[in-house]
């Protein structure tokens, strides 16, 4: 169960309260294959979250087309799951009820009741069913958010820096969990991150974006065999080349500083 996603010549301009326009996305095109694991990295303000929101249907572009399996994306849909930066869990629902939310919202809870405990086990949260979000750790909350998104069996899962706020141990743990789920479900994964290691460790391809205007500067294929070794030679070489890319990008003359 996976979908291909096609983005072609998408533009998104925001106008802030002072009337200044910010070119969040300029002429962005990208094709994502079904079942692919894509990471989008780049410094803040490069439009990576905007792009993700457009794919989710939470926002609309001024021009350009977004489609999933050849169908235009018009609104949000349960076929595209979304994991928010801070989890976005419902604080008034227990872990179990947060995960079951999608089934209830779609009115299919009664038929799929057993799925809830399956997904709780899938993200390793057995025993925490009746805990409330504030009672569990950040890593656990993100796992709840992932399980909550996956229970609707989306064809694509969009992850907006889901591990941004976690410590490195929890993060490594969750990355492995994510890979495991990806292998198991075959869902197309689109991960927004600013962690280069995370992008290399997880993805098939890394989309590098640069700001002002937000655009795709480069796409890096990660041809390393899985499971990947975080300290391996090829891993580090790839990491170095991406770092160099950003240093180069920063070395380009920036018009704001020219008087």
């Amino acid at each position: 169960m996976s979908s291909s996603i096609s983005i072609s010549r998408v533009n998104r301009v925001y106008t802030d309260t002072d009337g200044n326009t910010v070119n969040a996305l300029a002429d962005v095109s990208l094709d994502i294959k079904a079942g692919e694991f894509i990471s989008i990295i780049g410094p803040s303000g490069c439009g990576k979250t905007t792009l993700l929101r457009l794919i989710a249907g939470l926002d609309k572009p001024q021009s350009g087309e977004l489609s999933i399996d050849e169908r235009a994306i018009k609104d949000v849909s349960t076929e595209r799951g979304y994991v928010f930066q801070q989890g976005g869990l419902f604080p008034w629902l227990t872990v179990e009820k947060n995960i079951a939310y999608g089934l209830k919202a779609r009115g299919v809870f009664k038929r799929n009741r057993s799925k809830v405990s399956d997904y709780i086990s899938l993200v390793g949260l057995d025993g925490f069913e009746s805990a409330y979000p504030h009672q569990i750790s950040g890593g656990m909350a993100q796992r709840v958010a992932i399980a909550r998104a996956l229970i609707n069996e989306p064809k694509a899962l969009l992850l907006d820096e889901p591990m941004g706020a976690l410590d490195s141990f929890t993060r490594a743990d969750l990355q492995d969990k994510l890979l495991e789920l990806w292998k198991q479900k075959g869902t197309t994964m689109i991960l927004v991150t600013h962690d280069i290691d995370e992008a290399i460790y997880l993805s098939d391809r890394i989309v590098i974006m640069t700001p002002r205007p937000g655009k795709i500067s480069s796409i890096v294929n990660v041809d390393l065999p899985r499971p990947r070794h975080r300290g391996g030679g090829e891993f580090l070489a790839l990491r170095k080349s991406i770092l160099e890319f950003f240093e180069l990008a920063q070395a380009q003359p920036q018009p704001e500083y020219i008087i």
Partner: protein
Amino acid sequence: MDNAAALPLKAADTAAGNTKKSVRWGYKHNGFFALKVLLTLSGFIIAIIVNIAFPQKAAVEFKTYTLGIFGLNIDLTINDAYIFVIAVLMLIYGAAGLRAFFDRARRKLYCKNAAFRFAIGIALALWDIGGTKLQWFAQPFFPGPAQVIEAYLADGDYVVQNTLYSLRLYAAGFSCGVLLGVGTGILIGWFPKVYYWVYPVLKITGVVPAVAWMPFALTLLPNSFTAAVFLIVICAWFQIAFLTAQGIQSTPKQTYEAARILGSGQIGLITHVAIPHAMPDIFTGISSANAMAFTTLVMSEMLGQPGGLGYYINQSKVWSAYYKVLAAIVVMAVLFSLINHFIGIIKKRTLRWQEGVLKK
């Protein structure tokens, strides 16, 4: 030097640690707890001793009433009734002590409350001396505890009747007020158009005390009961609507987005996201509206009701029966506290997810 000094200290510590079987002197210690129970009860024992041993200097008529309980006719002076009430209090606190003895969590609280409960007994004793024994306090405004109890013996059925009247009025008015308030609040919070047209009206009329509408209520509504219900409704309605709207509007956009992606429709967003998010604010509204509803209830009873505790106070005042006024006040204190407690329980259940998030 430092080491040498620290060593014997450490040795003493481990020595204390080895004798773990003796419980430290505190609420976990049975002897300590027994003393706390004794302290709790001794206040009331003092009150009884004062009542029996202290000479009755002032001229007070101790009427005798016959109570029919379970087919038995018991003759009892108002002073006997007072001692009986103290005995009942002692029984309650004694039973609570027994229950706490076997329950660690309750023990701590019981010990904490012991000093205050002791003070209740002392206050009763002082009140007995000042109000009944010596009548230091201005009479008939501040009668002693036995006279207040006399009101229940003399007027028992009537007090109950008036209490039920108040309760009925409150229940009818407040429940309608809560329903209307939450309903209006949701509409205001959800629909910008409703907000634009209704919110300013609510904001301006909301500051007017409900009783100000009484002349209209009494003339335009079919009877005084509906008039009082109407007043309680509006005092609860505006306050609750105001806070409900605030709670709905403060729901983070991301929470709605998460729900939409998971498949929630418009109605689901209201019932499963906006309303749960607004619940803490709704309860803040209910609590403050509740306090205003009590005020409105008693005021409207005093000004134009054929019954109720406010009416009873007014009627007793006419006869200068201040002991009855006090008796009604005691009933109000107990009744309103119980209602608050009841609302508190519902609140705690509903907002269980907040436990540990907020500083108490």
